[in-house]
């Protein structure tokens, strides 16, 4: 019923369809609830995902991967938003492979089979901006500091942490629970990811440092850009799911002798939701079309997409709850699971206000060319 543009890769479409088949069978909402209650993830589901080949999609061919692109896997993330499978899917489908493609080896290579669970610990996932002095640091071979909000930290076997050494970024691959690596769970609302805080006080061992300097900086930019874009896709899936749920409810629920969907106030809420959901889908589609290969322009595109996705999902979640009335407020109803996942992703690598502020600052600092292509610039054409 909701229109999707036909742009996007064929592989992306196939991936989405096969993901939907897989998720609809393997991830009943009861599994989501169980994992959330246990603040954990299902390892057998994780193995099944690995068997689906999800963790090798973006990995380059030399490492046995399919060398697909963000454009191809975006639709997969939209599907994730409709089913909420527990576990650090982003880390294994996108971030880990990006690191593998940047030359990182060791335990990370085993994410493909699902044998190891390796997550990325970015101290700046909350883009409020931590001051330099509060970032984890490496001094004289010793890593100290803390990273919060690590996805599935206590289920991971390894984490790859970003730290500062002599004013440059350095990535360290560390065993969870290893010497000087203390990972403590933090109670999470998010039904998909549990969270953890890692505290470091470790004399670095050979093999710990996996990426440094420019290579680390470049990888970090790509990881953050990709994470924003995929989170936007997931938020699009969540929004879509919630709006379909709300439409169905409005038809099924009767009061005053007729379906509540026949009342104008409800119709208007649903119409507004449909407009936003469709607009977000269109935005994700055009953004993914530009994500077939890395380019500096992609950072802005990802930020814009994430901003609108954050805002849309939050608003759709609130309106969905409004339409469901009291029923939707109950724990036993599935709505809150999608609502809470939307909240978790809203602020991930920047919410709409933070991102608008940083985009605005960039636009105003620029000189010369206007940011929107004007006459004569090739990218201005929408078709052909």
């Amino acid at each position, binding site marked *: *019923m909701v*229109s999707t*543009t*036909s*742009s996007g890769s064929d592989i992306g479409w196939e991936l989405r369809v096969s993901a939907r088949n897989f998720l609809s069978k393997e991830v009943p909402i009861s599994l989501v609830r169980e994992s959330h209650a246990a603040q954990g993830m299902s390892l057998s589901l994780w193995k099944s995902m690995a068997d689906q080949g999800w963790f090798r999609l973006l990995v380059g061919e030399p490492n046995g991967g399919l060398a697909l692109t963000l454009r191809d896997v975006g639709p997969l993330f939209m599907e994730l938003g409709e089913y909420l499978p527990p576990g650090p899917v982003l880390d294994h489908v996108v971030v880990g492979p990006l690191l593998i493609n940047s030359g990182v080896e060791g335990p990370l290579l085993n994410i493909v089979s699902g044998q190891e669970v390796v997550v990325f610990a970015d101290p700046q996932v909350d883009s409020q901006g931590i001051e330099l002095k509060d970032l984890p640091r490496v001094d004289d071979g010793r890593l100290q500091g803390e990273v919060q909000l690590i996805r599935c930290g206590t289920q991971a076997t390894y984490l790859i942490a970003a730290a500062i050494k002599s004013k440059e970024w350095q990535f360290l691959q560390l065993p969870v629970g290893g010497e000087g690596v203390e990972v403590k769970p933090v109670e999470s609302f998010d039904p998909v990811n549990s969270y953890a805080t890692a505290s470091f006080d470790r004399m670095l061992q050979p093999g710990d440092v996996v990426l440094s300097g420019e290579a680390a900086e470049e990888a970090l930019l790509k990881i953050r850009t990709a994470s924003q874009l995929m989170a936007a896709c997931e938020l699009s899936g969540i929004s879509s799911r919630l709006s379909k749920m709300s*439409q169905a409810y*409005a*038809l099924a629920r009767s009061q005053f002798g*007729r*379906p509540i*969907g*026949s*009342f*104008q106030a*409800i*119709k*208007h809420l*649903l*119409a*507004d939701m*449909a*407009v936003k959901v*469709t*607009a*977000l889908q*269109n*935005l994700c*589609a*055009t*953004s993914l079309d530009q994500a077939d290969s890395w380019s500096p322009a992609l950072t802005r595109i990802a930020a*814009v997409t994430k*901003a*609108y996705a954050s805002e849309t999902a939050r608003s759709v979640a609130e309106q969905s709850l409004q339409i469901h009335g009291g029923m939707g407020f109950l724990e036993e109803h599935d709505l809150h699971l999608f609502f809470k996942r939307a909240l978790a992703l809203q602020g991930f690598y920047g919410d*709409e*206000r933070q*991102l*608008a*502020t*940083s*985009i*605005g*600052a960039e*636009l*105003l600092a*620029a*000189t010369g060319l*206007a*940011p*929107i292509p*004007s*006459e*004569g610039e090739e990218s*201005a*054409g*929408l*078709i*052909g």
Partner: protein
Amino acid sequence: MIDVGTLRLQVRDWLSRAEIPPHGPGTDDRFHALLEWQRALNEAGWLGLHWPRRLGGRGMTPVHHLAFCEELARSGAPPPIGLIGLDVVGPSILRFGTQAQCKHFIPPLLSADHIWCQGFSEPDAGSDLASLQTEAKIGDNGFIVNGQKVWTSWAHKADWCALLVSTTRGARQRGISYLLVDMQSSGISVSPLVQMTGDSDFAQIYFEDVVVPRSNLLGELNEGWQIAMHTLATERSFLGVRKHLECKLIFNRLLELLRATDLAQSNADHTFETVGSIYIRLKVLEAQMHSIMERVGKNGAPSAEDSMDKLLLTSVEQDMFSAILDLLGAGRMARGGEFLGAPSNQWIHGYLASRSASIYGGTSQIQRNIVAERYLGLPKGN
């Protein structure tokens, strides 16, 4: 048929060498210049790109036409003055008219020899258009029309009017007919309306025993409602493409002005957020244009998705002007003042004008009803 990309390049090339009349408020004074502009566009072959060749068009696709509209808007050039004829009434004549009607009306519509206006709304029939009261009785010479219309753009300059009349009293949609009326007919009087922006784009029209020949009935008797719906939906899809680019041009202008100012003072963060959020919305609109183009390319028929597009466009346009107005701070009521080295008036005018976006062409409330009932399939209520 040339491909769209080539067309764009040709249009850009032509525009770069053409003498473009200035854009902006006060269109009434520049009516003559805008008329000449449309004639020049038509002679260059840019109008009716997707219309049949035998009627003065070029036999291309609606996507070509949309691409042209985009390029025109991007260049900052004003749209042709006969826009209602080109984008609103013309398509309905092509779709529902007889061969003779098409031959008679389409070529002069393209050349601006006929300027069209739309006589739909009445003082008592706005959103509830089907309740219109302007009546056409069938006489010996044709129809005799009595009644009154309002919100008719360009009525005081128009040669022809697409008029919705009741031909079966009380039958609402099933008793409505669509007439093509010569504005020179005796019995027609026009009185302009002034808007709160200071512009005078609309008028009221009074019809007193106006004779309209039988051959000027478009489609069948009492079957004008579907034509009217077609007219209104067509209006929506082309509007989006044009407006989206106008908004971008305005935003670029705003950026230029802001960049030339030192914003290191207080409230910089707020300004950054405002600018960034407008940019994000414009990008959302741009993405929507892709899907419009695709839909138009596959099948040009108007649909409930046009209503979704209008709702999105309206919200982006209104949010943008609202945010810009807020940047003016206390200066927002000083029309003659300056903001960032440019007259405040254009921003205030822009904001006030934007408030009508959720009202014209079907209010946002009506659009939501359409989306809910025809796109989401929700049951009709009350």
